[in-house]
């Protein structure tokens, strides 16, 4: 597997664009919201994700983080994907993303379901990087649970 299959252009682009980044500067959430901070102790990468829910849908996802291109791009892609989804759809997508990433290359990504996040399929071949890609998704899952339980 080549480096370019890991670092697909879409990942490199999102690692710079960082959609949804700027939690501290974002307006107060409308409706129910939850927030989760996740840390990768091996490298010190960290992220805080806030998920807001209104009318059964994810109305907004905002985050602040510091980390490698994989973790930053993953949070950016997640933002684009999550906003507008129903809470159930987001749960399903997060579960699927986790299955793909933990499969060591055995579970192919479904672009229909995962959209741009399918580009992270190659990460599953790099055990040390799975945590990087999962960081914001784990935070979003936790934040979503809090928002829904309110």
């Amino acid at each position, binding site marked *: 597997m*080549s*480096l370019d299959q*890991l*670092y697909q252009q879409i990942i*490199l682009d999102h*690692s*710079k664009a960082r959609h949804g980044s700027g939690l501290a500067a974002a307006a107060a959430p409308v409706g129910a919201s939850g927030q989760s901070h996740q840390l990768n102790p*091996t*490298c*010190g*990468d960290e992220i805080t994700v806030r998920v807001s829910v209104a009318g059964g849908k994810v109305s907004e996802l905002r985050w602040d983080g*510091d*980390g*490698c*291109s*994989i973790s930053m791009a993953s949070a950016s892609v997640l933002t684009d994907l999550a906003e507008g989804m129903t809470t159930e759809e987001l749960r399903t997508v997060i579960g699927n993303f986790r299955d793909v990433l933990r499969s060591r290359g055995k579970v192919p990504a479904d672009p229909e379901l995962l959209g741009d996040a399918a580009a992270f399929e190659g990460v599953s071949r*790099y055990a040390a*990087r799975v945590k*990087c890609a999962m960081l914001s998704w784990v935070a979003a899952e936790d934040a979503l649970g809090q928002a829904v339980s309110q």
Partner: protein
Amino acid sequence: MVATPAHLRSAAVALGNDEVLRIRNDFPILQQRVNGKELVYLDSGATSQNPLSVLEAEQEFYEQRNSAVHRGAHHLAVEATEAFEDARETVAAFVGAEPDELIWTSNATEGLNLLTYSFLNASLPGAGAEAARFALAPGDELVVTEMEHHANLIPWQELAVRTGAVLKFIPVDDAGALDLEAAAAIIGPRTRVLAFTHASNVLGTINPVAALVGLARSAGALVVLDACQSVPHLPLDVKALGVDFAVFSGHKMLAPTGIGALYGRSELLNSLPPFLTGGSMITTVTMERAGFLPSPQRFEAGTQRISQAVALAAAVNYLSETGMDRIHAWEAELGQRLVQGLSAIPGIRVLGPAAGQERIGLAAFDVAGVHAHDVGQFLDSRGIAVRVGHHCAQPLHRRLGLTATTRASTYLYNTTDDVDAFLNAVADVRAYFHA
């Protein structure tokens, strides 16, 4: 070849590339290709590789002499005990210690925990009169430095929490050097222990042991040296350094994992309460009490890591035969080549001493706009193994305004070609990530 500044040149003749190429033949793991490229292993600061003589020593032990030591009258038990104690003699001599001053541990981390738990035991009720010199009470002070590996920080934090002692630290300056003026102000009559690293695993700095030992001595404090990054790489004599305790790990010096050592002055070890208790470390046992053997058995409860000790002795013999002064001189050259090469690449910030100043054969650095994980991944695609992250030194990284860095660390089996392949790859990193 980059010239080493005159004041850093050792009297010893450094290894050269031809000799290193011969040395490499002794290391099977270095013969492989990674991602289609020749493996360039620059992560010996984390763990080193094993020469055939070490692998064979461990196998020979299991094939010919395996048995429990210090018990049993049979032939194999005698052979195993001899091998085990010969190994202790070899490793002790390598660092200038007497055999009874060298205690086997799993690694340096365990050595430091053994010490801090023994100090804690000395501080508890019923510890006895001879342990009183190690007892800590509220108001006592423990001093470490801001550049410590977590292994030489957290055990002291925990000891402070449990005894009410205060943990203080000697700060580092922007260049990563210890502030000795601050050290002189911090180390005082209340200081009971000064624990510091001999060589920084991040900065590559070699700390001024004599000056720090002098400060500790005038304060009546004990000195604990983390020698993880020095024992494998330079000639070292614990008596000449004048420290009370020192720790190091076998796996960083050509031996397998699972073996390391704690050095302690004999007189101290024999009054320090044991950490682990049980079989093999006792004299007379009743249902109520037990007497303890003197060092080293006092600190070696239970069946020991015998084959690993034998393998560590084989590693020490390999290093001694090559010559520690020559290894040190060679790695100093590689270290200068690393720092000079890195400093010449735009967007690279090297931590620790600048080019031309003394450092061991490693360099940690930040790449502007590219996270260390990505740097490491990029280098791996070229077959180059480096360490990325905080290198178990979060406070030091925070002090330098960083979260994670990349570190290249050399050993006696690295050539200048290894360093150059690494430098060429680093020069391409920022373009790849559009930084």
